């Protein structure tokens, strides 16, 4: 099924989208990554996880990182969070080199990582308390954030009493309560069922519209990446390198019916090609049914 001719060019942008990107690129650069590399281990056993990664993220931009498993996208975001160190190159937040974790970069994890001994409200106030704010100030803040994620009524619940989606909303509120410059999200909706995931995507877009924050988002769900992002950074694996930086030619605010937009499908097709390679020809696809001999031939490809 190679319907390339029926697809519109994903690089073509309407004047409105073009203006949107011009405006976006004129904003200050929040995150500047330059020739970043990461090698795990030393000597013979060393593996290169990331190679020569360079990109900029502008203020209030929504950037997603996609790529096949093992492309180092999690390593990249962990380096940016300061949980891991790079072996070469640099990463700067607002012109300052990233050294270790800090409250300027909020992180949302796939596994929620809420503190089980704190209530919902306690989880949200954790960050501000660490940075030494007074407790009244912090309480009022927390209330605001919880209202934003729709969990004001659950502030005295413990994490184990919440559903996955609710937990992740607390995770987002907790990260935002620190007023970070950039929000790093590592497959935040990966553990959620499809329905909750769609809801959370809508939530996130809404939050992003109302909060002054830049978002760097990792996902393996390509539709999710297209639906949410301004730009998508496609990584290739072994070693993890930037393959392409795709600008999404869809207007904002995003709506679920855009999933059927031909431009959406064109981007989707482009991402599929980048990540999985060209779709095999029909004959080829059937070929490995033909037994061991044929199998070897496919393998040799």
């Amino acid at each position, binding site marked *: 099924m190679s319907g390339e001719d029926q697809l519109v060019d994903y690089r073509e942008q309407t004047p409105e989208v073009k203006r949107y990107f011009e405006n976006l690129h004129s904003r200050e650069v929040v995150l500047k990554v330059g020739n970043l590399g990461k090698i795990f281990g030393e000597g013979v056993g060393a593996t290169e996880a990331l190679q020569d990664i360079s990109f900029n993220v502008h203020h209030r931009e929504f950037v997603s990182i996609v790529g096949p498993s093992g492309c180092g996208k999690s390593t990249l975001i962990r380096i940016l969070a300061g949980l891991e160190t790079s072996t070469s190159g640099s990463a700067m937040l607002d012109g300052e080199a990233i050294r270790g974790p800090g409250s300027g970069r909020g992180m949302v*994890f796939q596994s929620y990582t809420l503190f089980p001994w704190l209530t919902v409200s306690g989880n949200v106030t954790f960050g501000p308390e660490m940075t030494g704010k007074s407790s009244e100030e912090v309480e009022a803040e927390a209330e605001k954030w919880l209202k934003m994620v729709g969990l004001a009524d659950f502030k005295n619940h413990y994490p184990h009493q919440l559903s996955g989606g609710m937990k992740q909303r607390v995770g987002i509120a907790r990260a935002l309560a620190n007023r970070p410059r950039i929000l790093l999200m590592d497959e935040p909706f990966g553990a959620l069922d499809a329905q909750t995931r769609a809801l959370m995507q809508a939530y996130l877009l809404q939050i992003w519209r109302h909060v002054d924050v830049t978002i760097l988002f990792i996902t393996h769900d390509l539709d999710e990446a297209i639906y949410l992002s301004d730009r998508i950074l496609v990584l290739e694996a072994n070693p993890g390198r930037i393959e392409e930086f795709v600008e999404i030619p869809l207007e904002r605010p995003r709506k679920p019916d855009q999933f059927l937009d031909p431009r959406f499908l064109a981007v989707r097709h482009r991402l599929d090609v980048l990540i999985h390679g060209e779709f095999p020809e029909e004959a080829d696809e059937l070929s490995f049914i033909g037994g061991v001999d044929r199998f070897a031939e496919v393998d040799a490809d």
Partner: protein
Amino acid sequence: MDWFAIGRELSPKARGIVTLCSFLLPLAVWSAFSYLPFLWHPLMEVTESGDSRYFRPGMTVEREAFYQENARLSSKGSAIVKGIPANPVYLPAPHEVGKAFYTAFVTEPRLPGDPWLHESLWHSIQVIFWGFLLSSIIGVPLGILCGAYSPIARLFEPFIDFVRYMPAPAFGALAVAIVGIYDGPKIAIIFIGTFFQQVLVVSNTTRGLDRALVEAAQTLGAGKFQLLTRVVLPGILPDLYRDLRILLGWAWTYLIVAELVGAKTGITAFIHQQSKYKVYENVYAAIIMIGIIGLFVDIVLGALGSRLFPWEKDSKPGILTSIAKALGFGKEASTA
């Protein structure tokens, strides 16, 4: 319902019944051996001595000797000895031990100046308390530091692991020489028996904390000290509490050895004395009492734990709750 499905928990009622059986079964076996004359009963208790010159009423003798004597007497035409099957003195019947639970407390010590049973018990509890407390004051913080920081673990753990293999009672004589007589060496043995295990157990528990929680706290701006006090400590608290409950159980096993060091004291002294007097029902009562105190403390600590850590989901129901539920006292059973 399949009772033997691997890893499947029973219904609350079934669970309670089985838990109850876990106590009733040994009691039933004990009762059977005590009350069924045809089971075991290797001795004969003489009730009437007849014409025997050796056997007196109340004596317990070997069956063989009893029958030989009777054969001898009957061959001479004399009145034979009468008796009933009996168990050795070291196996008292359940009701005798049950009675001893009361009488042991109200019986005056044979020697003036000897402690009463409740005094002995209280003494034992104090030795345990101080030994365990002193060990925990040093062992818990050290264990947490070992679990949190690799250099501290590398510095302390190998040596502690080495000392751990030395049996605590082996230090008895040393303890007396160093800490002197009275309770000092006894507390020292509880300390030695607990401390080294404690450090290793606590450090392992600390190491088991989900690293992702530490990372999350780091990205929220927590500093080194805050990570320790605001993440590691609350994060391991429920597990730490559970560890201490288990370690407290171990401390009781060291108590018996500790109380043998120097002058015998506490419940151990009572047990030894009573076995010397051959009042074995008191010996059993005392041993069971240790079990009951241990179980009671554990149940109280368990109940306290679920109050202290409301964020801990599905903690296992304690023994008493299970039994109560099975008997229909529990909330679940009454609503069902």
